[in-house]
């Protein structure tokens, strides 16, 4: 599993202050910590970017590249900032992200071709978020066909199904189920394609101390269905151990839950029981509530 470290994100107050004040040490500290945790890429999420776009992105890319040799994921909806970032990258970067929206097709996808980089393409279109598996497949096939015409091969495309919070009233579990199914059939309809997903979004809105349960379990489930990569928190040590194959018993247990096997909870440790319960809410088998581990 290719892990893209998510921790350099403007939503974090420390990061946004460091960028504004051009203070590289905070940023470089986060880059090093993620590199040491074993990430494959470092995501630079600068948000929509309103002013000093190019200069800010160049500064950020250079600051991170002083701290690590890892390739970067340039994560902004602003095409000017994206291009500045791609130009400054020493190693082949990941453009994160394009989508099926007209503006993205016109302004983002050509950049991926121009700079010969990998590109994340989400299922989003001008009509918004496709609601079910069929419409997600349909929209991503359209956008990928467009990218292919521009000269971007499937092998350079990382499809993002867009994960949404499981805690969203009523609907959240439908999203987690739909995305498991979508990832499962993606490779069949678009051979050679890669995929990635913003993992932590799944647990957004759940109680803070329980979020890692959802992130870890869902990652194992998505990986089994063929997910190639995830944008995730590498500072979650257990998550990283799971991706490295260091917890095979837990992985096997989650797979059993996915297969609907009868699992005797009374014979499991508390940790194992929690993984099984979490898998069952993520696959929509039991109704989600913030107290899902307690029932």
């Amino acid at each position, binding site marked *: 599993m290719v892990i893209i470290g998510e921790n350099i994100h403007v939503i974090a107050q420390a990061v946004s202050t460091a960028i504004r004040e051009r203070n590289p040490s905070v940023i470089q500290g986060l880059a090093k910590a993620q590199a040491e945790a074993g990430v494959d890429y470092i995501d630079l999420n600068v948000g929509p970017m309103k002013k000093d776009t190019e200069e800010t992105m160049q500064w950020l890319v250079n600051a991170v590249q002083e701290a690590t040799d890892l390739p970067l994921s340039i994560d902004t909806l602003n095409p000017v900032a994206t291009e500045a970032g791609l130009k400054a990258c020493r190693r082949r970067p990941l453009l994160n992200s394009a989508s099926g929206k007209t503006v993205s097709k016109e302004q983002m996808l050509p950049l991926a071709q121009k700079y010969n980089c990998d590109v994340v393409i989400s299922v989003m279109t001008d009509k918004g978020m496709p609601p079910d598996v069929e419409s997600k497949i349909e929209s991503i096939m359209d956008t990928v066909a467009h990218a292919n015409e521009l000269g971007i091969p499937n092998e350079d495309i990382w499809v993002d199904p867009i994960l949404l919070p499981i*805690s969203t*009233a*009523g609907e*959240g579990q439908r999203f987690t189920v739909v995305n498991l199914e979508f990832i499962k059939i993606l490779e069949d309809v678009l051979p050679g394609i890669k995929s990635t997903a913003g993992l932590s979004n799944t647990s957004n809105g759940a109680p803070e101390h329980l979020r890692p349960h959802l992130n870890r379990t869902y990652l194992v489930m998505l990986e089994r269905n063929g997910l190639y990569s995830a944008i995730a928190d590498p500072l979650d040590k257990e998550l990283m151990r799971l991706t490295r194959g260091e917890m095979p018993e837990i992985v096997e247990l989650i797979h059993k839950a996915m297969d609907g096997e009868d699992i005797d909870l009374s014979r499991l440790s508390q940790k194992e029981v929690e993984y099984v319960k979490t898998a069952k809410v993520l696959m929509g*088998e*039991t*109704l*989600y*509530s*913030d*107290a899902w581990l*307690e*029932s």
Partner: protein
Amino acid sequence: MEYKAPVEAYAGVVREVTVGKGKKSLKIGGENILPFHFFDQGSNPNPAKFALEVLDMNPQDWPKHAVEPFQDVISDPVQWAKKCQDFGVDAISLFLMSTDPAVKDAPADKAAALAKEVAEAIDVPLIVYGSGDEKKDAGVLPRVAEVCDGMNLLIGPVLKENYEVVGRAILDHGHTAIAQSPLDINLLKELNVKLSKFFPPDRIVIDPLSSALGYGMEYSFSLIERVKQIGVITKDSMTMMPIIANLGVECWKTKQAKENKEQGLLWEGMTALSLLLAGANILVLRHPETLKSIKETIEAR
């Protein structure tokens, strides 16, 4: 070829909850089929029940045509409750409006004494709703539970914010709880999970909030429907409780119901019928004529 209609059998059974004591008791829930799916395998041993509203003070915003059936008793909750019985109710629902800090902020003792007086005066079980102010209810509802010790009233709303203190008092004094959450199935389940840690789940009734026709009823419908599906089909223990639809108050708030009597009856009737179809087990109505027409509709008279 002969057509054979498929017959479903479900895994879950909604818990049967008893409200009231002895002769003054009724059972709700207990079904192992989806609402009105009499063609499937299973049954609903306790068809839907109906309660009428009684307020602990003169209604402030009721239109004349809603007050009219109770004109002579509207200032006396005990007589009002007795009069409701003439209309063939299964239960009475007493609303302790006056305790609301934003209304009269009436003291808990007074409210509890009235609840007891009403409960003793009627021949059907009593439902008691606090004002819904989570802090005030945390004082009022435990007092009601204590004063009415052992009468097995149906008391609520028990909320996420006060379930520990209110739930404990309801349990200790032998009553049944209405667990209320704001139109969200995940929060509904969470409250039931937390409450059930110390409270027997077969003494919990779910109030998912019931919106009126044209004012969000479809949300209530979908939610009640889903609670029933998840309980009956997937056997989720924390949704296998009967549902109370407290809809009269919402219907009679609408402009349409206030405008004239016929519209009001239709508004309340259509909302009630819809929520019955969704799976509500006990409905709280305001107008006795709505009660009559709904009963006739169900019995297809």
